[in-house]
């Protein structure tokens, strides 16, 4: 199969564009990272609808604080962190506002509404256990659907580095997921 090259703007450049007044550049950043953020928040909340809400809130919060982002290339990891915090806060609020349902994680039952399948949640939680760079590479590759070259261009890292992170992440995930099987 022949892969065609396409120009991929770095996240850093898109961040700088947003800061110079081009709000539409933010749409591209959201497009790139929305699935990674949903996966991140989903690992915490165990619910896709809530995860989407958390991711959305995180993107808006990130936009408002964009000027404080110290390394523009780290936009993905930074927003994922915001999404995680948002999700944790939402999980606490939900816990306070309703009684615990007490559904054991290991019980494999059909999910209802946006609630995540326990096996899916286990994968997402495994991804969350990865070191930050490996996690970011895995999120963008497996959930964002981005190719290695694109991830490298987006995050401002060499392709070899991304491959290395991805390879280690995959090996770890493979072990962790096999352990509980």
């Amino acid at each position, binding site marked *: 199969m022949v892969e065609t090259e396409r120009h991929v703007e770095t996240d850093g450049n898109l961040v700088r564009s947003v800061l110079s*007044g081009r709000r539409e550049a933010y749409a591209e950043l959201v497009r790139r990272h929305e699935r990674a953020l949903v996966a991140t928040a989903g690992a915490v909340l165990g619910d896709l609808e809530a995860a989407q809400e958390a991711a959305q809130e995180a993107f808006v919060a990130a936009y408002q604080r964009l000027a404080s982002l110290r390394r523009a290339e780290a936009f993905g990891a930074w927003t994922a962190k915001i999404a995680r915090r948002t999700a944790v806060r939402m999980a606490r609020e939900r816990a306070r506002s309703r009684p615990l349902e007490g559904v054991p994680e290991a019980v494999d039952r059909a999910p209802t509404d946006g609630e995540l399948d326990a096996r899916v949640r286990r994968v997402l939680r495994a991804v969350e256990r990865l070191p930050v760079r490996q996690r970011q590479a895995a999120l963008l590759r497996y959930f964002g659907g981005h190719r290695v070259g694109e991830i490298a261009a987006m995050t*401002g890292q060499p392709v070899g580095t991304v491959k290395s992170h991805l390879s280690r992440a995959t090996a770890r995930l493979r072990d962790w997921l096999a352990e509980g099987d």
Partner: protein
Amino acid sequence: MKTDEVFDEAMDRARRAVESVPSMVDEVLRGIGGAEAAGRRVSPERMPRTLSERITHMHRAVKVAAALVAALALVATGWAAEKVYEAIQGRPVRTKLEAMVEEEPIVLSDGRTVVGVTTVGTMTTADGTGATGVEEQQIDALIRRGEYRLMREVAQANGETVHVYAFTLGDGRVVHRAFATRLDEVTSMADYREKQASRLRARHRAIREAVAKGDYRLLDVEPLLVHLCTDVASGREIEVQRIDLPDGRTIALARDAQEALRSVSETDVSYETDWEAHLEAVRGGRRTLRGARIVRRYTYEVTLADGTSVRHSYGGDLSLDEMGKLQGR
């Protein structure tokens, strides 16, 4: 089940679950718009107003890029003005900055980003009248008709040549203007600007690529003194740069402190002829001196990919080597 199969199946299931969530781009943009409408401050509006403030707030790597942009802006106007001042033999100079365009950064294979800015401007003698719209139109018409006289060509240290032309306006006044290319190569002012912008972009890109590869050597470092002032009458913040000319005279170059922030500008930037006149304005209370800063001007010889060498100057706090270290080179 084999480990690989377990992994593939689990990842595929998780991927499909996440992919089932519809895109939230529109929702996020609406959320941002709602926050703005509700008066919640967002980052672009929260950005510091001046370039130096912006740079202060940036992370080091970004700061380097911003410093380079600021530096190039300073040099592109200041240094060229100095040369044109010489070119037109001591007559006061007025510059019109036509456009300042931040270039698309070059992303290197190792992920580092090199940025630059291109400024396009025209300069004219300021005989107390300055450039006006009518004057602009007249000069454009004269260029279209080929009615101008080449007065002088001045070689610049960066290898470029400034061409000074004289134009006779409708009221009989003769004005001089400096151009970076010969006018017989262009058909109008718009054509000149377009070609000049394109040429500068290509040149800057070639320089940035060579710098990124490390093909340069330092030739000189000079201090530039900049007074930070407020024009009392207008309340406008200005930066006044001291320029020592080779003939021993000292001139002052004043420009709007906000100028560097504008992406595209039709700003008039006026240049004074005498540093003493600037100090007199401060002493007389017409201009408030708020402080000063020293900017270093670095001059490098850069070897381009085609083997030719050019001079590259910029004003800033860091040398190219120091910038490289900050960016992990």
